[in-house]
């Protein structure tokens, strides 16, 4: 055990933690009497600088394959570098949007908590060990609970935080329970060691393995907000302060999906043939009947059922929403469903794994980017009109044409309209799924996902209709902070440019892979 090595491996995380401490010190020691605006700006800029330092540290560590003892395995796969860079960029964008907010006087603490949560995200993105996974997840989650509760004067914020915390605590307990079974069966906390040990067992893994699988799925399902572990999402998205909600919807999603890809890539999940009598027996039967036995493993079936339920419920429930934040929450559930489809098929074979994990990463990174912008616009409108109801968006194109145009681009991208990046995210993902296996089952699943994205266009257009079409009830201009506006324009421009040149981001992610 060499602490110098440990320090070197965790350089990005350390950079974030140091930045968090620095923000606290500067804010509490030097800026006590300064105006809130100054404090927010300083804290956010320091945070952004911390993210920049962490990105530099990512590049500085030699390759992304360092393995520290067997206890702490970080960043073993190439995609991790891309995910971590994405986490840092998204965190920086969220911090920049924070500059124009006044929900709390304790900005130093808020920024510090956000940076620490982001470092938790960095950890889980690269973790290959049960303990590290759990520590990273808790670091991330605790930060999120605190951030959700930060608007102390708002009852909704407290309610949202409490719900989030209770659900989160419960699912963390489930996951830890599952981890303990895995450890008990194999005597190791390292994912690849667990894999090796499990494959030694004859005639196959004991029933406890499936219990562990389900409880772990509950824990991870909570993090990515998929049905049936999604109940916290609408309330939290609605009640949390906008930067916190944006962070939950983007950074936390990217990190959790990176973790999921990491777990799937070690392949301890898929190698076992279908167990009879499993919850998802009918899917297995369908898959087997269709001749695609290869992919009909319990883990596969479990993920597919969750994915389909999320796509269907997320999209249908979003239709009925009148609060734009809740609409975004349900659409997030639907998007998580699409992504899970990609993950399910990453289980099929080695080639599928790398291609699908690229597609999943592409999807979740671009989704995170888009959704930060969407929450940013919602928060500007909310501050001007006092609510995030659909009708608050009436006549936005007159009240602030730039923000309206940004919202148009972002929502159309979320709906998957080309040439915006959201289209390529879906396209890539579905092509990857069909590339792994072109049997009737994947085909039907992709067809369902595409059909549901038609439904999603309807509810995104409900918002855009109010922005552009319906007459305004109030035409006073909405002012946005110049930094906020600039961030939105950058995000919208990125969505357009990455959509017109889809190869840019794809190649970037693939190159991370090639480093390995």
């Amino acid at each position: 055990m060499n602490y110098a090595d440990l320090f070197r491996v965790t350089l990005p995380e350390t950079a974030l933690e140091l930045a968090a401490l620095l923000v606290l010190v500067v804010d509490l020691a030097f800026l006590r009497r300064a105006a809130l605006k100054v404090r927010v700006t300083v804290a956010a800029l320091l945070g952004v600088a911390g993210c920049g330092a962490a990105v530099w540290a990512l590049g500085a560590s030699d390759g992304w394959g360092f393995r520290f003892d067997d206890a702490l395995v970080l960043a073993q796969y190439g995609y991790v570098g891309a995910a971590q860079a994405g986490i840092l960029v998204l965190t920086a964008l969220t911090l920049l949007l924070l500059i124009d907010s006044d929900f709390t006087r304790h900005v130093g603490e808020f920024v510090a908590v956000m940076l620490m949560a982001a470092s938790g995200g960095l950890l889980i993105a690269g973790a290959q060990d049960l303990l590290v996974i759990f520590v990273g997840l808790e670091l991330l989650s605790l930060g999120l609970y605190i951030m959700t509760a930060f608007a102390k004067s708002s009852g909704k914020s407290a309610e949202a935080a409490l719900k989030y915390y209770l659900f989160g605590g419960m699912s963390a307990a489930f996951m830890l329970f599952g981890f303990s079974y895995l450890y008990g069966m194999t005597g190791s906390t390292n994912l690849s060691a667990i894999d090796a040990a499990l494959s030694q067992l004859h005639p196959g893994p004991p029933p406890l393995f499936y219990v562990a699988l389900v409880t772990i799925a509950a824990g991870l399902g909570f993090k990515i907000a998929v049905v049936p572990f999604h109940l916290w999402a609408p309330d939290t998205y609605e009640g949390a302060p906008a930067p916190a909600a944006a962070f939950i919807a983007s950074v936390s999603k990217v990190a959790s999906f990176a973790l999921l890809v990491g777990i799937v890539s070690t392949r301890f999940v898929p190698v076992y043939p279908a167990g009879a009598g499993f919850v998802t027996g009918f899917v297995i039967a369908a898959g087997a009947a269709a001749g695609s036995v290869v992919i009909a493993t319990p883990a596969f079936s479990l993920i597919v059922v969750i994915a389909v339920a999320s796509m269907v419920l997320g999209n249908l429930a979003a239709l009925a929403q009148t609060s734009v934040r809740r609409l975004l929450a349900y659409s997030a559930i639907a998007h998580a469903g699409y992504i899970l489809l990609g993950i399910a098929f990453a289980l099929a074979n080695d080639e599928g794994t790398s291609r699908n994990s690229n597609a999943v990463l592409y999807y979740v990174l671009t989704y995170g980017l888009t959704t930060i912008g969407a929450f940013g616009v919602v928060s500007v409108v909310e501050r001007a009109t006092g609510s995030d109801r659909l009708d608050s968006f009436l006549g936005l194109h007159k009240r602030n044409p730039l923000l309206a145009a940004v919202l148009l681009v972002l929502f159309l991208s979320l709906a998957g309209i080309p040439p915006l990046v959201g289209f390529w995210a879906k396209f890539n993902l579905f092509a990857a799924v069909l590339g792994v296996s072109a049997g009737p089952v994947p085909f039907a699943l992709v067809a369902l996902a595409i059909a549901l994205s038609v439904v999603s266009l309807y509810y995104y257009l409900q918002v855009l209709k109010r922005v552009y079409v319906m007459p305004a009830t109030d035409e006073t201009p909405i002012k946005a902070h110049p930094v906020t506006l600039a961030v939105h324009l950058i995000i919208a421009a990125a969505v357009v440019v990455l959509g017109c040149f889809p190869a840019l981001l794809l190649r970037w992610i693939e190159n991370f892979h090639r480093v390995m």
Partner: protein
Amino acid sequence: MFLILHPNSVSLLAWTIYLSFAGSLLLALMPRGKPVLSRWLALAVAVAGLAMAVQGFVAGMGQGLVTLVDVPWVPSMGIRFLLAADGISRVLVLLTGLAAVAGVLFSWNIDLRTNEFFAFYFALIGAVYGVFLSFDLFLLFVFYEIAIVPKYFLIAIWGSTRREYGAMKLVIYSFAGSAMVLIGLLAAYTTAGSHSTGLIDLAHAGLPVSFQLWCFPLVFTGFAILAGMWPFHTWAPTGHVAAPTAASMLLAGVVMKLGAYGCLRVGIALFPHGLDPWGFSFIGIGSWRNVFALLAIIGIVYGALVALAQTDFKFVIGYSSVSHMGFVLLGLMTLNQIGVTGAVLQMFSHGVIAGLLFAIVGRIVYDRTHTRQLAELETMHLSRRMPFAAAAFVVAGIASIGMPGFSGFVAELQVLIGAWNVNHWWVAAAGIGLVVGVAYIWRAMQKAFFSDLLPSAHVLEQEHNHAFAAITWPEVTGVVMLAGVSLFVGLYPKILLDAIEPAVKTLIAGGGQ
């Protein structure tokens, strides 16, 4: 690097796309409250696009497929930014150029958010140009989907009767259709296992016949929704009626052609065996070809009959579009040289004539009378008070019913000859549509313009005091241009047929080029 200019001036065609999108962006950034400037800019962009289209058409005469731009776009998936043009593309690009100019002329009176109107307008036009020039499967699809959203805003913001409903219906139908197409294309892409998504490469990939048999109807139906194929046509009348004049001109003039073009360029070219017999037959229907021909014929007859029963002038034209697009689909299903050529010519012809009809009904008449109810128009003596409109509608009506001398005659005749060679009954059934076509145009013409109620002195004085606004120069120009084109093509169809025939020949012979 992305905009490579070949010495060959056919490559100017690619610039129609860039120009339209640039124009759209420029118009979106224009200051509000300067409608005159926006109008002239829009006209300049449209005319420049038309000039390029004409230049490309003239330069392309006698040439086959000309590649305009070919650069890798998504190398890892084999997707290329591949623009090319054969005779069919050149004819349809020409149509788009004409429709774009005419649409701007007939939108001259739009004062509400003028710059935004034209921004959405040119986003749509640019996408349409893009579809007609794309020779990469997914590039074509991308342009096809770009065309969806501007339509929504054009109709929902500037439309009339039940505009939000009409706009949403149209968008959901279009997007559902394109979802079907996307599913089919993804399946074809993965099944072919090819490293190129070029249309021609995929056509040569040799997709298994059994695969083609189920993928073809999916893709064909997806595209045909936008072409107004019965029973998926219901978006068309409501959408056309709700749309502002320029948008209904574009919808009928070019957007429905996108669907038909997709059916031909992607559906038939990529899955030629999808039309093979199933090996069994049920009440005389033994292949997808029979199914779609039947739907096309039902569309022809049903659209015409429903048009006959309408009380709203614009609905008459809306349903007539469904009927005329049926001829396009029927022509495609003949799968022979003359029938498919006729279908392509019909796309051009209907684009021009329907544009003219919608312009007269929506702009010249409705913007002055503020009603489209035939019963009310009947009391207005329009032939006397708006002689220009009446004369224009007579010309457009004659063109629409397929009178020799206008483009519609040549096109529908070829379709029917092609159909005769396949199945006599198809012609007999479609003939009913032709006859009813005469009836509904005549009925509408008589009711709207030539009612023989004699006015009393009092009515005459009232009419004198409330004279309609004079016909403006953009309207005259637009009418003369569209009617002139239809007449010219009717008298000298060879000019388009020379371009269409060789392209159709290679397309139906080899599945690709």
